[in-house]
Each structure stands twice: as structure tokens, then as C-alpha cells.
């Protein structure tokens, strides 16, 4: 069943028949399918690694209206994978760059450049104008927000997610199958999983996963049978393996289960544990300049570099003891609790995980987190070092 109602279909022009002939030749798409594609309105959330191939392939396919929502600006480090942006787009809004590329590729597409992040306050209003949403976000707040808003509005949510070499894709369509909450009732607590900014990502991975999402969008539009509803596709680009797992609808799902309790978008910062709770002991921090001053003073400090060897090879931190994050609890005995320990990583995020792991392992010494990590040292102290 197509998600595009028949009432919106109009005839194709001769130019369109030529342009989309390779679709028209497929009996699964044909003239009627192409008319549906042209009538379709698809919202892409996130103009990044996943959003780039999504936007390009959907534009090439002739999707009538493509909305792109993203509040970010193009940075040099995006260009390794976000192929909708170019070097000349650095510092431009991502949606402006995406809009230009879509228009150049296919001027018949009506592009809505939505230069803000989706929030609980605007998501329902934005999504209600679309037939399908493709989720190309990089954070749990927006992921649950999209899931909830789509289920509440009855819109299918074509999901993709990536990390390092691995991707996931599925279609969450609460009317016909499970939603993201049925699979993952709650997100990981912050401080347990590193982001791609820290963990890295192979550039072609979002190209593959985003293209899978684009294929699922087209199938929902033309009414393909075997969509990813109720199936989780796992992809490992390093082993070059696909796997498929079943996702069942959860009868207890608070959104799409038998006794729902969610009827409007909620506070996702709170849900994802991003608001500090009163009982949580804050981690002590130290700035790069403060650390430099203490070292220059000749103070005894244990510097602990929690990065892995391949990452230390990018920028070495002078005179630090190296204990990778993944070995922290079992190597706690190598630290001297009588001396202050300063933990460092790339941007000061995983070093917090290291401190939490040692707290749990019962380490009693004073622990400080190098704020903004080795990048801050390169920015404020040793300007000859690169930031990465």
C-alpha cells in the first residue's frame, strides 16, 4: 500500500516521461509509481552523512517536495562523508548548501530548507505537512522526538543510524509495525557511549545506510511490499556483512502499545538524562592553561591518556601514562591515589567515562578531567599541535 493518496496524482509531462524512463520501465514502479513519487512530500531530518545521499537520491528520483531540517553549519571535518556539501560551502548553513545541490540536480523538486533543529515545540507542526520522514539525526533526543511525533501523526519514519563501521536501518510505522521505542525503550545514559565525533566513522558508511533509507522511502511511496517494517537491518562495512533481525511490536510500548501514555512530544533532554540531577556528583575539571601552570610549577600530577594507540598517533600528549578507556577498571591499581590524576581524551567526553568507571571501581584518589581534551591543549597551550 502506498502512503500517497490517489487524489494527489497528476499526469506526467513528456519531459518527465523521458527523465524518469528508467523508473517507468520497472513494473514495480511504472507510470503510476512515478506519479506517486512526484506527489510525495518527504522530510529529511539532518543534512549530514545520512541526509546527503537521501536528499540526492530522492531529488534524482523526482520526489515532489523535499524538506531538509538542520540547524548546523558546514565544517571541514564534515566533508569526508557529507557529499551534499563541498569545500566552498564551509561555514554556510547545511540546509542552504543542500538546497542548492538539490535544485542543481533537479529543478522540479520543491525544496523546503528548514534551518532549525527539530524540538518538542516545533516537530508536530513541521512533520504534519509530510508523508514520510527520514531520520538522519545523530542524537537520541531527536531520534525519540522523531519517533514519537511520527507515530502520533501516523507518518512512517525511515530510520538509519551509524557508528564507526556499523549501521542500522529500519522503518518504524506504528500503524503497521513496531516503533523505535518498541526496540529501545530508553536511550543509553549519557556518559556511556561515545559519539561519532569521538569514535570516528568510515566515510562511505552513511553513504550506504542513507541510500538504503532512500530505497525504503521510494518503496513506501510506490507501495512496495517488502519494506523494513518489523525488520532491523544491520550492516558491517568492515566485514562487508548484512544481517537481518526481527523487531516485534511491544504491547507495553508507552507510545504504540495497548495502553499508551504518550500523547504529545515530551521533554527529550530529561528523557535522555541530559539534565543534571541533584544527586549526581559533578566531575572536577581542569582547563589546559591551569594544567600547564601546575606542571610548570613542578607539581606532581599523574597524566592519564585514555585514548587508544591509533588515536594517540594523531596527536601525542607529552609525558602521559596511557591506559585506554576499555581497560580502566582492571588497571585501576596502576594509579597512585595520593597524587592528583588528570584524565585526557580528544574533547574531554570519554575521559569523564574513565573517571566514572574508576569511581565505580572504588578508586579513592582525586580525579580531574581535562576540559575539551587534547584539542584544548592544542588550542590554548601548544599551538603547534593540530586539533582533530
Amino acid at each position, binding site marked *: 500500500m502506498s502512503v500517497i493518496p490517489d487524489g494527489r496524482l497528476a499526469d506526467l509531462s513528456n519531459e518527465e516521461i523521458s527523465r524518469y524512463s528508467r523508473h517507468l520501465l520497472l513494473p514495480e514502479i511504472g507510470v503510476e509509481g512515478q506519479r506517486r513519487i512526484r506527489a510525495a512530500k518527504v522530510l529529511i531530518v539532518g543534512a*549530514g552523512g545520512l541526509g546527503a545521499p537521501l536528499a540526492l537520491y530522492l531529488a534524482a528520483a523526482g520526489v515532489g517536495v523535499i524538506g531538509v531540517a538542520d540547524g548546523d553549519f558546514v565544517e571541514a571535518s*564534515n566533508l569526508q562523508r557529507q557529499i551534499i556539501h563541498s569545500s566552498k560551502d564551509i561555514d554556510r548553513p547545511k540546509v542552504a548548501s543542500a538546497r542548492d545541490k538539490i535544485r542543481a540536480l533537479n529543478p522540479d523538486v520543491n525544496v523546503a530548507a528548514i534551518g532549525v533543529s527539530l524540538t518538542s515545540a516545533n516537530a508536530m507542526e513541521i512533520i504534519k505537512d509530510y508523508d514520510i520522514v527520514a531520520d538522519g539525526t545523530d542524537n537520541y533526543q531527536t531520534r525519540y522526538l522523531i519517533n514519537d511525533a511520527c507515530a502520533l501523526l501516523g507518518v512512517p519514519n525511515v530510520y538509519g543510524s551509524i557508528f564507526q563501521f556499523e549501521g542500522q536501518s529500519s522503518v518504524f510505522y506504528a500503524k503497521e509495525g513496531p516503533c523505535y521505542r518498541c526496540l529501545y525503550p530508553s536511550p543509553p545514559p549519557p556518559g556511556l557511549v561515545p559519539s561519532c565525533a569521538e569514535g570516528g566513522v568510515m566515510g562511505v558508511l552513511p553513504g550506504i545506510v542513507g541510500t538504503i533509507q532512500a530505497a525504503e522511502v521510494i518503496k513506501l511511496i510506490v507501495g512496495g511490499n517488502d519494506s523494513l517494517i518489523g525488520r532491523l537491518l544491520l550492516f*558491517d562495512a568492515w566485514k562487508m556483512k548484512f544481517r537481518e533481525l526481527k523487531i516485534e511490536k511491544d504491547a507495553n510500548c508507552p507510545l504504540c502499545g495497548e495502553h499508551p501514555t504518550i500523547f504529545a512530544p515530551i521533554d527529550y533532554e530529561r528523557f535522555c538524562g541530559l539534565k543534571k540531577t541533584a544527586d549526581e556528583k559533578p566531575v572536577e575539571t581542569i582547563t589546559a592553561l591551569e594544567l600547564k601552570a601546575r606542571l610548570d610549577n613542578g607539581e606532581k600530577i599523574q597524566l592519564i591518556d585514555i585514548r587508544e594507540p591509533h588515536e594517540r598517533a594523531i596527536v601525542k600528549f607529552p609525558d602521559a601514562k596511557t591506559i585506554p*578507556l576499555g581497560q580502566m577498571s582492571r588497571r585501576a591499581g596502576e594509579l597512585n591515589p595520593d597524587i592528583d590524576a588528570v584524565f585526557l581524551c580528544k574533547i574531554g567526553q570519554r575521559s569523564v567515562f574513565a573517571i566514572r568507571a574508576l569511581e565505580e571501581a572504588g578508586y579513592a584518589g582525586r580525579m580531574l578531567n581535562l576540559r575539551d581534551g587534547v584539542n584544548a591543549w592544542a588550542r590554548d597551550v601548544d599551538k603547534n599541535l593540530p586539533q582533530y
Partner: protein
Amino acid sequence: MAITILIPTALRAFTDRRGEVQAEGKTVGEAVASFAKAYPDIRRHLYEEDGTLRSFINVYVGEMNVKNLDGVDTRLKDGDTVTLVPAIAGGRV
């Protein structure tokens, strides 16, 4: 029972980068526990403070989620493969 546990990239920092580890157990709960014992740094990623498995990691035996079988009590056969499938959240960055 000899069980193979497949480790996703997101958790390989805690398994010395191994993508596949061997474990022992008659049930899913036992197999995961024997694996966590061998790699203690992964414990806090797998378990809540009360000892239940964290809800952002799904455990699959074959292509079935153990949530839809008998949970951690799901019986395993010799040679079974258990896959850990955590939530991941990259894409836009």
C-alpha cells in the same frame, strides 16, 4: 555449552577490539555473565545497577530478540550465537 557472542563496534573498546568472543552458559543470562567476567570493563555497559541487562542493548539469539523469547532465561544450545545490538546514534555529525 560453548556459545559465540558477537560484539558490535560500539562495545569493542572493552573487548580488546574483538568482534567475536567465546562464552559458556546454558542460558542467555549465563553466557552474557561469563563474557562480562572475562572483560570486566564491559560490565557497566551491559548491566543496570540492579543487575538487569540495560534496555538500550538488545540481545538476539539467531534472528529473535530474547525479549520475545524467555529473556535472560532463554535456553541455548551448544554452538549458538548470541548477538548484542546496542542503540547507536550517529548520522548527522
